[in-house]
């Protein structure tokens, strides 16, 4: 009951904040002088990219806790976060390409940040494929946990990349590495509200996937009992 209530709250609040986000992006925030309307991709691309990478710490904590305690719920959290992280990073890479073309004239640039993001996306894909093709039970979960822990390290470099290797990709606009006044205040408000909307959606999707994973585990147990 509480789970359902939490999910409903997440779903309703994300929908409401999403409406506000769409209003802010298309009506309220000013248009960038240099990049024009294509800069509005930023309000989707950046929050979705951040959340795609934020799934890695969840995978990391879930995997480490699973390896230590063998708690199936921790494995389910890691699995759910990896799948939702893969979805978010897929969208972040696509929107990045759609922003790169009008900004730099190319669909893809091998600059460190997008390249490392692509590596993170490949780690998620490897994780999902490992879970799909490994035998049922603890073995697949163990291998995936190790992959999740190793892969999580890369997400730190994605954040640091634009600072360490300065190139065409813009630097971080949020977090400890962001410079003061790197964004117009109204753009910053738009970005923070978009981040809130997507964070709520992200949490909702993880909780939904977690419950599905729990049902899958229940089915596995029943099948084992029947055999």
């Amino acid at each position: 009951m509480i789970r359902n209530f939490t999910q409903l709250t997440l779903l309703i609040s994300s929908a409401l904040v999403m409406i506000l986000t769409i209003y802010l992006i298309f009506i309220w925030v000013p248009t960038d002088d240099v990049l024009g309307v294509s800069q509005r991709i930023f309000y989707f691309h950046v929050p979705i990219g951040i959340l795609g990478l934020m799934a890695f710490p969840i995978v990391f904590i879930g995997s480490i806790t699973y390896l230590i305690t063998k708690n199936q719920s921790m494995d389910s959290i890691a699995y759910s976060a990896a799948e939702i992280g893969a979805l978010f990073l897929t969208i972040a890479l696509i929107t990045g390409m759609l922003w790169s073309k009008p900004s730099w004239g190319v669909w893809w640039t091998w600059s460190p940040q997008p390249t490392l993001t692509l590596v993170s996306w490949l780690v998620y894909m490897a994780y999902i494929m490992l879970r799909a093709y490994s035998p049922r039970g603890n073995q697949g979960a163990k291998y995936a946990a190790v992959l999740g822990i190793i892969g999580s390290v890369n997400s730190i470099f994605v954040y640091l990349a634009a600072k360490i290797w300065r190139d065409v990709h813009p630097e971080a606009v949020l977090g400890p590495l962001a410079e003061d006044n790197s964004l117009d205040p109204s753009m910053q408000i738009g970005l923070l509200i978009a981040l809130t909307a997507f964070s709520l959606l992200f949490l909702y999707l993880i909780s939904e996937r977690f419950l599905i994973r729990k049902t899958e585990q229940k089915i596995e147990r029943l099948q084992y009992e029947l055999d």
Partner: protein
Amino acid sequence: MNSTKRIKSAYIYILLIGISILQLAASHPKESDSNQFLEYLFAAYTISWLCFFIYLFFISKKQKELENELELLSKELEKQKKN
């Protein structure tokens, strides 16, 4: 369970309305806006929502299938225990 499904559908409708607003906003840009790269903006937002919708559809379908499978297995297990 039904209320969750209803709210999920409502969410999808709200987002579809959002996309329509986007389309409207994109077709009536402010005077200062440059129309040059509008198609990229539209493509980015449409693809993002499509990905979310496809994923939501995929997990809803999976949830339904798993619920059916769970019910079948529970019934089978009960039969086995009775025998």
